[in-house]
């Protein structure tokens, strides 16, 4: 039986699949795991940030000013990097990675946020994009969608955003034995400017 969260998750999955199909991609090439693409490194992140800056993509999040607190670090204005929860270990190993609990004001972090490196803030999801067996060594390739402001959108038909519909048993039949639940929506995810969304492909460390 579907849950309310599944309807929104389906939207996320469709948007994910659209980005995996059509976004320009860049392989991580500066790691040391001997694969192609390699694991993610600071140099790969710097390259993709430079690409987005050169493409005039606006950052999504403002910087977080430094504060006089132990163990914290200021956070730059940032693009979003959307990726799988399976990359958390790799991200922890990236030079310069700042966990969100090290932000000067952690309340500015999003629930799904894992941390930041340079000008990227990483949002993780269990349904993050993976291309199975697609690396040179036949390992899974993780697609990290790095996006600037208004890089892509979900366009809904008028009056047809996600609806979660529950009908109690009284609508079922003479004996009111079965209730039904389901969801529906009509929308299309679409890249608005292909220069502002890049798929940074990597494998795990």
């Amino acid at each position: 039986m579907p849950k309310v969260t599944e309807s929104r998750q389906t939207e996320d999955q469709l948007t994910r699949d659209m980005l995996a199909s059509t976004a320009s991609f860049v392989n991580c090439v500066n790691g040391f795991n001997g694969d192609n693409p390699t694991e993610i490194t600071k140099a790969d992140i710097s390259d993709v940030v430079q690409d987005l800056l050169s493409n005039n993509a606006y950052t999504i999040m403002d910087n977080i000013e430094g504060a006089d607190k132990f163990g914290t670090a200021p956070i730059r204005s940032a693009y979003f990097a959307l990726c799988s929860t399976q990359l958390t270990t790799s991200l922890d190993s990236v030079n310069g990675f700042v966990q969100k609990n090290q932000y000067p004001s952690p309340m500015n972090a999003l629930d799904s946020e894992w941390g930041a490196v340079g000008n990227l803030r990483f949002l993780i999801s269990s349904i993050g994009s993976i291309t199975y067996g697609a690396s040179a060594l036949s390992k899974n390739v993780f697609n990290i969608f790095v996006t600037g402001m208004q890089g892509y959108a979900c366009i809904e038909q008028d009056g047809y955003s996600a609806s979660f519909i529950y009908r109690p048993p009284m609508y079922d039949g003479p004996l009111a034995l079965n209730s039904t639940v389901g969801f529906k929506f009509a929308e299309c995810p679409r890249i608005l400017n292909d220069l502002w969304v890049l798929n940074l492909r990597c494998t795990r460390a």
Partner: protein
Amino acid sequence: MSTDTTILQGSFVSTGSNQFIPLRGGVEWMETKNVTSQATPANLDALSSSWQIGMPDNSGSFNLYVAASTACVEFYSTDGGYTLVDTSAQTSGVVTNTITAISTAITPVVTNTGVNGLVAGQIVRLSNCLGGAQALNGIDFIVGPSSLTNTTFELLSAPQLTTAGTTGGWSVINYDPIFYPRNRVISIMAPIDNTTSILTTIPHGLTVGQQIRLNISDDLYGNWVAANNVQTTIIEVTSNLEFTVSFNSSALGTFDFPVTATGAFTPAAITPFGENTPYAVAQGVNILADATLNTAQIGMLLKAGASEPAGSAGDLIYWKAGVSFSVDNN
């Protein structure tokens, strides 16, 4: 009819090939009637058939006509019939590490041990290849019709290797990313007059008038890095693997796929991003051909054949599908 019952029905004329019937999600039973065979039955024709949830893929229950007794018998088969399909469910192919060599022919030919079981047009992904084919690892290629035997297959659109590949693996890729249009890896580019011909490693699916962006960011591509981020218009589609764009690349020299690369790199690729509307109008083609389209489908694949649900060519077949109030397959 109560709410929790979903009934779908329709008909089709068999082409003699397997028939895919798009259905809404959650279908739990399906029936077919071959009314052509029912009117003029031949021995072992499936006059009707059915499937319900719990039966394995490629199975079904068949009502077969037996000419000798001019009667029908019920027959259950797990070799033919109905297969529920969800094309958005993409699974990794099994890597078969049976490659023993990849040739330096213009169209590279792979030699494998055992029986590859491939047919022309299938997509394969190379991995773990050593020798001179390391740069092809992780890239998808289409199997060509020539040199195709149980122990050899050609990579139809692959760049020519300078040094032969040695051992490695391959897997069949049975799916495409579900959204159209899709980015594609470039195998070969060549200036032609004031335009550029592009060969992709697998079918591109693009049409005249669509705009693409060239992504050639890796320094291994030499002068062609100057074409990175160039946006250009498709002016001719030569084949499902090749098209011509308006970009004049004559100043960039020869395009060389970095076949000698042994480390990580980003292969050159195209990204479709829109439509050149004035050009499309001038060419009389669909100005919305670039539209983002979810190509995934849910439905039932019916196997073709006189004793199967999709029948023989020309057979008229009616079908019904639905959902049950309750399923108890303990």
